[in-house]
């Protein structure tokens, strides 16, 4: 809006920033010693990027297609298990599947490919099960989608949530133990060595999501979100597009599940519960429903705040303040209150439905000092406007009350039988849903 840039400069800038970030992450993970406080930053970037991917995938569904689905944790669960099962080294099978005689799958894809292709095979062996995780999740989502996607918004939410819970029970079923290790943890599978791996994979996946959103499909998704009936009238096949969105979203949820498995180094079905889905949903809300940039920012903020910055609140010492009321659990209360404040007062989240662009970023930077300067004034003006609105509301209420009283009096005297009642001021106006 302020100064226009040509496309080339923008691409160069973006590529430069992304490269710089990747290099910093790579160096950060190799250089920073384990005992340093900054190591936590790397951990947050790893987990944040994984959550960014799953939040983006949920946003594709909730924010761009208007399908309120709460099945993300279940899909991540499948992804995580699929990846883990196929990459446990052969030698570790007896130890991992200790109650199931070493399990049924006795080989690891990573080792097989590593044997024939070396380092390249090692990574290929990680990428194939990861893609496989995504594909299996996509297939399962496709099947679940056939019945579920015909449901309306909140029924859809509760049905997907139900499916996630069923999946969780299924994966813990003792009979499937030789494959899933029953309710015991899966561990020892191949994980990444450097934090750059999840960042890179998540980045590529998010880029694909962005491309999809900007394609004709993306426009169809948004049309469905804004008005299903109108979209259908314009010739968009509702079910087909919903199914596409659902399957693609689940595919990426599966990949992020695989990444999460690598991050955690052990996998167990229990934590993939509704609370996890709610957390992802809250990330989407904090970032802004309908903004991928928002989801990414939200994921990093959420992870950093909950895992790192606010931990001091549990220990009784934070920002140099110590207080006895800061005991375990306080962190989560503060966090939940912050989220509630965002939901109620900044319901558009950090980015609203806008995406990052260099123009608006530079414009924002340029205007920042002026905005900051103008801030007290603006606040005053806002407060005044608020007061005015309040007064006007009170006045309207008083008027309405008066009218109601006079109506009642006239009703009592029988007059109203013949003359129409005065229209009162408090008629509510309802916005159309989904706006």
């Amino acid at each position, binding site marked *: 809006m302020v100064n226009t840039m040509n496309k080339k400069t923008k691409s160069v800038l973006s590529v430069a920033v992304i490269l710089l970030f990747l290099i910093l992450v790579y160096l950060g993970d190799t250089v920073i010693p384990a005992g340093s406080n900054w190591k936590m930053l790397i951990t947050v970037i790893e987990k944040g990027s994984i959550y960014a991917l799953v939040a983006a995938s949920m946003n594709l569904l909730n924010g761009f297609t208007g399908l309120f689905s709460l099945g993300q944790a279940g899909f991540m669960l499948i992804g995580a298990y699929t990846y883990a099962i196929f990459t446990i080294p052969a030698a570790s099978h007896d130890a991992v599947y200790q109650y199931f005689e070493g399990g049924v799958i006795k080989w690891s894809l990573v080792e097989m490919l590593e044997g024939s292709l070396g380092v390249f095979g090692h990574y290929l062996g990680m990428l194939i099960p990861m893609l496989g995780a995504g594909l299996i999740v996509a297939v399962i989502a496709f099947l679940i989608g056939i019945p579920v996607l015909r449901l309306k918004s*909140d029924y859809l939410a509760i049905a997907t949530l139900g499916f996630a819970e069923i999946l969780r029970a299924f994966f813990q079923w003792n009979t499937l133990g030789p494959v899933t290790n029953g309710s015991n943890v899966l561990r020892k599978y191949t994980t990444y060595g450097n934090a750059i791996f999840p960042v890179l994979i998540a980045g590529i996946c998010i880029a694909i999501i962005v491309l999809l959103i900007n394609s004709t499909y993306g426009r169809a998704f948004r049309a469905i979100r804004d008005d299903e009936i109108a979209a259908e009238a314009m010739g968009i096949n509702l079910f087909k597009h919903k199914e596409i969105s659902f399957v693609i979203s689940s595919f990426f949820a599966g990949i992020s599940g695989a990444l999460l498995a690598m991050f955690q180094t052990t996998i167990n079905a229990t934590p993939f519960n509704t609370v996890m889905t709610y957390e992802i949903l809250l990330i989407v*809300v904090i970032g802004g429903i309908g903004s991928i940039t928002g989801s990414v920012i939200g994921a990093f903020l959420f992870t950093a705040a909950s895992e790192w910055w606010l931990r001091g609140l549990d220990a009784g010492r934070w920002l140099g303040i110590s207080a006895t009321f800061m005991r375990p659990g306080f962190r989560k209360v503060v966090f*939940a209150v912050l989220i509630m404040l965002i939901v109620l007062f900044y319901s558009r989240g950090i980015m609203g439905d806008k995406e990052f662009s260099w123009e608006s970023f530079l414009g924002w930077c340029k205007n920042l000092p002026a905005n900051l300067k103008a801030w007290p004034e603006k606040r005053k003006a806002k407060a005044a406007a608020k007061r005015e609105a309040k007064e006007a509301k009170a006045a309207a209420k008083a008027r309405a009350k008066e009218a109601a009283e006079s109506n009642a009096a006239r009703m009592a005297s029988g007059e109203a039988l013949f003359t129409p009642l005065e229209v009162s001021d408090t008629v509510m106006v309802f916005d159309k849903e989904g706006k």
Partner: protein
Amino acid sequence: MLQTWLPYILAGIAVGGQYALIAIGYTMVYGILRLINFAHGDVFMWSGLIMVYLITVLPLWASVILVIIFAIILGTTIEKVAYRPLRSAPRMSIMISAIGVSYLLQNFALYITGGLTKTYPAINFLQKTVKIGSATTKMVTLITPILTIVLVVLLVMLIKYTKIGMAMRAVSRDFETSSLMGIDINRVITVTFVIGCALAAIGSVLYFSNYTGINPMSGAMPGLKAFVAAVFGGIGSVPGAVVGAFVIGVCENLIKGAGWTTFSDAFTFVLLIVILMVKPTGLFGEKNIDKV
């Protein structure tokens, strides 16, 4: 045969009655606001928690009354603070707000209890052991279904024969028109929350007298199951929710009795999905037509 299954059926009926009392809150709120009140299960949990603290200073009867009042205040406050400002917002925002409230209530309970499970105070009358045929069980198992049915009959009469009941039916049928007809929507919604939360509080006394541990997550699973019960019975229908709750309670216990313990919770959701596929309006629900 019956000898073997009797304990499961009894347990199922008891827990079904307790689900029913929670489910009514869900079904009424959904009927009027079209909102899955995710925080309802946590109001239920908080009622139990407050009882633990109240009983240390007050006699039993006073605690029970205060617990009910507390639940009502909590429920209506949630409605005022978290749902009312968003009423004209898209449906997704208000549902997210409900999830946020649920998250907050759970975490606040976590902070207050310090993550420890609290033991529910012993109400001797309810926890007395009784023998029925081959089964031994707690008194509460017998009282729950009776009390539930009495309360439901009272509620149905309230909805059918009083003015506020009529207003509720009108609002649930058509929100906008009834507001145009001069019905005070806010009052109707408040009353709905009052009834729902009071029943949840009574349910909490019964439920936690039977299963005496309360932790911050205690409300989540009963809440979800109660919601499924409401969907099963046809959302918006009070008798439907009650029937649904009993069905879920009994089936769940029979499944455990049959040895499928891993899937006792999953079953509830299987039932949900089946009912949504086969008859999305539930057993007693009315058909809803989308209008442009």
